[in-house]
């Protein structure tokens, strides 16, 4: 989860998110360099005592400041497209979980074997135990195994919602009448939080998502979901 006043991205829990963080660092560095260059040029322009009333043309400079941005854009686009195609790769999932958005809670269905269906409501402030996170903790978490490709099928029963878990690099809209698929593989165990990311009414801010990722051996022992 994010800590207070956090500005940067959360630590990655999936390989795709690791790639996204690296790309973000790369793009941000390009942005900083360009901003610094422009501010420096502006500073020099504003603080010089030299004057020139005879500016005509500057073909070479114009060529450079056309070609160079084009190259910079290509250097940003190539990693971006690489990651885009990486997210679309066909990976053979081992588990399918359905996530259905309602106003204002999520329903999770584990139906590969038998049927486990439960609702996940945010814990109201009065029901919080010491140490629980306000507006983030839920009554029933989504328990999943690590190091296993998991397929999430996301839809909605009423209005638009969006199922997001930033640390996994996931955000998929829950659209009524549509069954959106997203896949991920978590690399480390832990409890990871996300929040509904599409405005859906009065309690849009109060329908969080909590994933509890555990080792596969423990997951295989059977339903140990806590209430």
């Amino acid at each position, binding site marked *: 989860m994010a800590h207070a006043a956090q500005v940067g991205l959360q630590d990655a829990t999936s390989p795709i998110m690791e790639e996204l963080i690296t790309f973000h660092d790369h793009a941000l560095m390009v942005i900083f360099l360009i901003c610094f260059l422009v501010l420096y040029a502006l500073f020099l322009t504003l603080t010089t005592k030299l004057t020139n009333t005879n500016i005509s043309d500057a073909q070479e400079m114009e060529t450079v400041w056309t070609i160079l941005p084009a190259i910079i854009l290509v250097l940003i686009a190539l990693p971006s497209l690489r990651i885009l195609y990486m997210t679309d790769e*066909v990976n*053979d*999932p*081992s*588990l*399918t979980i*359905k996530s*259905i958005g309602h106003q204002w809670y999520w329903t999770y*269905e584990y*139906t*590969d*074997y*038998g*049927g486990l*269906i439960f609702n996940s409501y945010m814990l109201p402030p009065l029901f919080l135990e010491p140490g629980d996170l306000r507006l983030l903790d839920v009554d029933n978490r989504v328990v999943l195994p690590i190091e*296993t490709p998991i*397929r999430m*099928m996301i*839809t909605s*029963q009423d209005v638009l919602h969006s199922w997001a878990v930033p640390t996994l690099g996931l955000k998929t809209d829950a659209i009524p*009448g*549509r*069954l*959106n*698929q*997203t896949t991920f593989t978590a690399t480390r165990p832990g409890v990871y939080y996300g929040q509904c990311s599409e405005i859906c009414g009065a309690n849009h801010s109060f329908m969080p998502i909590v994933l509890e990722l555990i080792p596969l051996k423990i997951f*295989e022992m059977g339903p140990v979901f806590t209430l």
Partner: protein
Amino acid sequence: MLDVEAQEPPKGKWSTPPFDPRFPSQNQIRNCYQNFLDYHRCLKTRTRRGKSTQPCEYYFRVYHSLCPISWVESWNEQIKNGIFAGKI
């Protein structure tokens, strides 16, 4: 329908519907619906021919894994009432 215990996988082996190249895009609603239709068509054809419906269980497992259960229940209700829109 499949017995729940029969569906328990051997330890270490989990299986879920594989990638279906007929439905490569993000919206898998057609995948879910097509397998639902295929299951009922398979049941109907094999029952009519007096054969075992065991091979149809594949389609059952796929749509059971992919489709939200509320949709499945509503479709089953429509089939029972004879108002299901799909061609079975």
